[in-house]
Every structure is written in C-alpha cells, then in structure tokens.
C-alpha cells in the first residue's frame, strides 16, 4: 500500500470531551488525520468511536476542545457546513433513500455540486441539462468504479445489505470529499464482502487520493487497511500509531482481551 505523500495535517482534534448526562462518551481525546492517509479509529463496543465521528462532522458539539479542519478551527459546526467543507460520511446502519434507485441515490450525493437554481433544474433546459449530463458522467464513473452497473436502476430497498453499503459509499464519493468518514463499513458482512469493501476503500484512497477515516471493530481488517490507527476505550485514547505498533501495545491487548485480576 502506498503511504501518503505529505505530512500535511487535514484534521486536528484537540482535547475533545463529550458527555450525555452522566455518561462521559469522550474524555480529552486528541489526534490528527494527515492528508491522503487511511486513518482507523478502533475500540471495543461503547468506546466512543461513533461519537468521535459525529463530533468530526458536526452532528455532536463537544463540551470542550477544538476541531481544526483545513486550517480553520471551530467548536460548533453544523452537519451541512461540514458537508460543504468537504466532509462526507456513511452510516453504521445504512441511511439511503430506500425507494429510489441506486443511481438516484448516488446522484443525490451531487446535490451540493449543483450550480443552477431550482427553476433551471425543473425546466431541465440548456445549461441545466448540460450540467446534469456532467453530473451523471461523474456518477457513472463512480458506478463503474464500484462495479454496480447491474443494479443501477434497482430500488435500493431491494438490494442485499452488502450492495446497499456500496451504494452508500458511492453517494459519499459523489460529493468528491476531502475527508471521507466511514462508520463501520464492514459491519454485518461476510468474509468475501469484507474483502471487496477493503479493496474499494484502498482503491478510493489510491485512485481519488481521498483521505479516509474509518471506524471498525474487526481488528484484522483494520490492520491490513490503515496507515495509522487510534484506539479508544471508554472514551479515552489509549494508543495511537502504525498498525504494527498498536498490535503490540499492552493497553490495547488488555482492552480487547480483558485483563486477569
């Protein structure tokens, strides 16, 4: 796997804390994501992984700490601002428009890229038409890339889970994001589907140069896939480094396998 070319930092998290009532989901977590890398956040159930992702894309607002994305620091950011800023994500439980075709779902990912106004869109004439053709071309490239030509016109609700996940990835890619957040992209998949998805993630990173942050609890997958891994346990970052370093870390082994008392 190709290592990222630069050490430029795309996203910096400083001392983020988040609590829901008495539950402290995140405690003073700091880490960064470099441009062009595949960054994994792992940890046992309830470690705060999804909370972390939700903080990054503005879905939750941290109680303390700062998030710096592309050089701009903010504490409060709305999800749509994150999307405009170039952060796309997929969800742990697939969140697609079930009645729409795979193609339309991915086209929806182009929404933020549409330049013409609503009226032009409705008329579907002249420049609006040309623009739509261009968007469709980009979407078709993604369809080709993810090898889902055969399901282009199939309503998403009729697709098996593994393919729905792939369509969701397609929609996120359609935004041409700077940072792609994947929330358990391989949850509930069999071995073959996992391998396919791993290949797509690596290809996205290689081909489009997209920076990827992914959450996963399947250790084996993460170790093969990521450039760097951060490990959370009970809202605390307990390790951070290359897959090899993390694998040898005693705190990580304890968190995953339990400690003899």
């Amino acid at each position, binding site marked *: 796997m190709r290592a990222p070319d630069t050490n430029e930092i795309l996203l910096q998290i400083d001392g983020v804390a988040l609590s829901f009532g008495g539950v402290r989901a995140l405690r003073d977590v700091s880490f960064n994501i470099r441009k062009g890398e595949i960054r994994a956040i792992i940890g046992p159930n309830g470690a705060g992984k999804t909370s972390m992702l939700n903080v990054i894309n503005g879905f939750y607002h941290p109680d303390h700490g700062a998030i710096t994305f592309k050089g701009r620091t903010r504490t409060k950011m709305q999800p749509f601002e994150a999307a405009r800023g170039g952060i796309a994500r997929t969800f742990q439980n697939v969140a697609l428009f079930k009645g729409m075709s795979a193609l339309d779902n991915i086209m929806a990912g182009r929404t933020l890229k549409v330049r013409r106004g609503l009226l032009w869109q409705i008329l579907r004439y002249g420049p609006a038409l040309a623009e739509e053709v261009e968007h469709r071309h980009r979407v*078709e490239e993604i*369809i*080709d890339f993810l090898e889902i030509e055969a399901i282009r016109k199939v309503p998403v609700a009729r697709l098996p889970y593994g393919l729905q996940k792939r369509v969701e990835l397609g929609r996120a890619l359609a935004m041409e994001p700077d940072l792609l957040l994947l929330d358990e992209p391989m949850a509930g998949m069999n071995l073959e589907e996992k391998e396919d998805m791993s290949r797509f993630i690596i290809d996205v990173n290689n*081909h489009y140069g997209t920076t990827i942050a992914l959450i996963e609890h399947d250790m084996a997958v993460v170790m093969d896939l990521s450039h760097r891994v951060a490990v959370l346990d009970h809202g605390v970052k307990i390790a951070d480094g290359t897959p090899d370093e993390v694998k040898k870390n005693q705190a990580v082994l304890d968190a995953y396998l339990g400690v003899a008392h």
Partner: protein
Amino acid sequence: MAGGGSFDTFPRLLLRNAARFRARPAFRHKDLGIWQTWTWAQVAEIVRAYAAGLHRLGVQPGDKIAVVGSNRPKLYWTVMAAQALRAIPVPVYSDAIADELAFVLAHAEAKLVAAQDQEQVDKVLSVSDRVPHLETIVYDETRGLDDYDHGRLMAIGDVIEDGRAALAADAALGGRIDEFIRQGDGSDIAIILYTSGTTGASKGVVLSTRGCIDAATDTVKFDRLTHQDVVFAYLPLAWVGDHYLNYVQGLVAGFCMACPESGETIEQDRREIGPTFYFAPPRGFEAMLTRVMIRMEDAAPIKRRMFNYFLGIARRYGESILTGKPVPLSGRLLYLLGRLLVYEPLKNVLGLSRVRVAYTAGEAIGPELFAFYRSIGLNLKQLYGQTEAFLYVTCQPDGEIYSDTVGPAAPNVDLRIAESGEVQFRSPGMFVGYFKDQAKTAEAMTSDGYVKTGDAGFFDEKTGHLKIIDRAKDVGRLADGTMFAPKYLENKLKFFPNIKEAVVYGDSREFVCAMVNIDPVAVANWAERNNVAYGSYQELAGHPLVYDMVANDIDEVNRSLAKEKVLAGAQIRRFLILHKELDADDGELTRTQKVRRRFISDRYAPLVTALYNGSHEADISTEVTFEDGRKGAIAAQVKIHDLQVIGTAEALGKAA
C-alpha cells in the same frame, strides 16, 4: 449481402468493410451507462494505429499474441491488429485459473498478452516466470494499475496513441503496415483456439485464414445475414462460438457486434440492444425461461391466467405457423391475439424481439424448452459443431426443425458415419492441426482426411438429419449387456427444472445409479413457496422433501425409459443429491460447463462405492478452490435413496 469473396484475410475484410460500410456501426460497447459506437471506418483507423503501435513494440509476423478477458472492443481489436501484422492471436478463457493460463501461454509461446483489467494482469504476472517467451503485457482498463511497474506493461489506449502518432510522423511506417497486409495470404494461420479440455489438457486448434472466411461465407449466406444485423457478443471470447458467430461472421457480413457493460448486466444490455442474430447454449435458454416462470408465479391471477391460456394456444399452433404449415383461421386469430398480449411483450422483456435467427448447441436441448421458444415465434434452430470444424458441422435449415436432431450437413460439409458409429466430417473451415502436436492431429484424422468427432450418432430415417447420442467412448453396457448411454440419461434428468446437473453410473455394473445437483434457483423458489426453511445449499440439497421431489422426477424418467425397448433395463435404481454444486473451478466441469465424468468419479469415489454397496448414507469430504486460488474443504453426510424399477407393463398401464 456481403461474403468473403476474393477477400481472403481479415485485415483485407476490415478495409473492405471500412470502404463499403463506412459510417455503419461495427462495434458497440456500453460504457459509463451509454452505448458507445465505433463505425467500420473508425475501427479500421484504430486497428491500423494499434497495429503500428504493436509493431513498434516489436511484434513480428508469426508471433503469438494472447488475449485474456471478456468481450471488450479493445480485445477484439487486438485480434484484428495481430492479424494485420500476420501475428497469431490466441484467446484464453478469462475465468481460467492461473495454472490453465500458464499452460496455454507457455504452450502457445505467447510473446505479448493483452489483458482486460487488473485482475487478469495480476494473473498473468503471477505466472510470468513460467512463460519464457512473454515480453510485454498490454491492458484495457487502467483502474488499479497506476502503481504497477510499467517496464513491460502498457495500456492498450497508449499503444494505439503511440501508433497513431508514429504513423503521422513517419510515412514509411504506414507503408510497412500496408506491406504486411499485402503479404497476408489465405494459408496464414488466422488464430489458435484452445479447446476447453473436456478430456484432459487443452489442445491448440490451428485454423487457417482462408478456411475461416470460407466457412463463415457459407453460413452467412445460409442464414441470410447482412450488414444490417446486430449480434450480442457475450459468449466467452476464447470459445469457437464467439469467435465464429460474432467476430468472423461480423467481418464477413459487415454487421455490428455489441459488447455488454459487464457480466452481470447481460440481460439488461441484451434488451437494450435487441440483437437480430442470437446464440445461447441450452442452459442459457433454460435459465431465461426459469426466470420468466418464477416471475409469473408472483404475477396477479388474471395475468397468470392470460399467460397460461395463450401459452396453450402457442403450443397448439405456434410451431406450425412458424414452419408455414396449414393452421385453421380461428387458430391464426387466437395466435395473433396472443402475439399482441403475451408473446411479443415476453420476447421484448427477454431482449429477443428483433431476433431473426437464433441457434443453440453444445448439449441436447429439452424438447419442451425448444418447443416453447419456437411456439412464441422465435426462430430457434440447432447446430452441431466443434472447434476442429471451426464450428459448423450440421445446422437446421428454416422449416426443417426438430428438437431431437441437429440437422443435415452444413453447406459444403461432407459428413459420414463410420462403422463404429462415430460421426466424421470434412469441412471448409476444418482445422489445420493441433499446435505443436503432430501425434494428436494424426489421431483425430482418418487416413482419407476426415476429422473424427468422437461423437456417436446416426442419420434419422424419417428426416435424414443427424442425431447425436453420446460421446462414442462413453457408450457402455451394463453387466447383463443392456446398452447404457450416460449422456442420454443425464439429459433426460436435466430436462426437469429441479435438476441442474446429473452424473449417472452403470458401465459394467449391475444397475444404474445417479448423482444429482439440484437447481438452486428453482428449488430455493419452491422452498420459499412451501415454507421450507434452510440455511445453506448443502442443507437444502439434503432436505427429505427435496429428495422426494427429485425421486418423483427420476420415476418419470424411468417410466419413459420403460417404453424404449433397448434402454428399459437401464433404469435408475438408486440416487443421491450432491452436497455442493459441481464447479469448473474445482475441475468438475469444463469451462463450457460440461461434466467431467471421470474426474468426478475419482473425486467422489466413496459416494460411488456407497451407491453400489447398498448403504443408505455416505460421508464425503471434498476440497474446493475459490476463484482466487485458495482452497477449503466441505464435509458432508449424503443420503442415498432407492427407487422402484418400473416394469414395461406398468408403464404401458400408466400411459393408457
């Protein structure tokens, strides 16, 4: 109508088509959701540039160029460009596992490989140390290949661009390409097609340019194909059928080849393109029908009744109307209504609306299946052929169609039955020999120059058409001397929708036994409708209700056998349902999906023993190979079911 005429090489045919059919489509390929089109004039220009590019890469006349991948215009153009340089194209099955690929590439002494994508490039690279002549790999789809060492790796697009630029810069290069085309001769080797290897290692069938073009000229005339036809090129590129029906006939007649977007989109693409000439093996037609029937099960009752009623009408009158026999007026009117309401919409859904001529071959086709397609107005015919003949040996002329014959000899084919019952022929497209294998070539020919097909057959007394029974060497006898034709029995079994594959045993045995593969689509659908729960193929295959269902089917076969005097003794006494599907990756089927009998009896030896020693259960563990070459094992306990033999009298009683 165009023929080969005085054009005896493929590059000359291409230039003729470019001049005669200039702006007519030659190739279509669905890419990024849109059908991209190339005209004959464009293709001629691209192939010329491609040939120049390959020439600059050092390709010389006589070099072998392997082509690995599915139906892509750039891969067909590789064949054309190679032929323009008088090099020899060697297509290889795209799903060949690494060892098979290594064998063919090494045996053919391939100097350059044109691969479709990263997957195929990886496969070629993984065996490159076993292929000493290999110098360069070119590829079509660039995806994932950016990071590879490009020392000996190049995109086909770049080769074409390079050739185009060089042609523009250097007039002498164009002259050299023209010189290659001028020197080309009908006796040149057009292509080497490796057989899929029903019997052991595959052999390279060498075909001459003149022979290929003459054979195709005859069949193009026979089926009145013109430059206005459209074919759907979805069959394996390395198979004689695709090369003959699409590539060679396409160049001879000047028609358009449409390539699907991917292997999974074939049905949609066929419907969009609407081919006028179509080939599918019997199992292709069967899969199509099965899907229609399954969907009809879920249709509204009124639609279902209409569908069934008009299929009844079609069964009664359809065949006769298609072959032009007399039909009462009321029948004609009802059929017309049926066409409007059912047959035409159905054909449209299947993408067969515009088909003028359809062929099937390779296996026996079920009489009901055959009659179904013909009755809804599809001109489906049978042909019999093999790679050594460059496809056609016999084919059915319009109006003389029977489901159990393969027709009279094709135009200019000389056909005879040897003393032993073996079918032998001489034909215009007949092969030159097996590549680098004099001994095998001699073995396949008679002393007076006929090719031995290895199939046993006879001429039907009534029609004069050829009937094929089985592979000559497979016809055996039971211990008591009763004739045993395994293929014949297996075909009878496979005509049932629940049974996908069958292997029967009986040669030199007391009685006949069968191993059966259920059809996962049909049986899973049945299970869903009957609330039968199962977790895996293995569980479904072992289900007692499934066993009962299959037992009923086999009883039916036995009943039909009881009516045939010679074969009444060869009824199936015991059977089992295999716990896994037979698979080409495990070597159990050939790449063209034919059963490899001997291999299977070795692999499942414990099961065969159990079939004959009276036990009712047997344990089996088999190794399986995944597509990427890894191996795993499946273990299972398989049940064995006994059947009652049906007496001749009983059968007659039932029939009465």
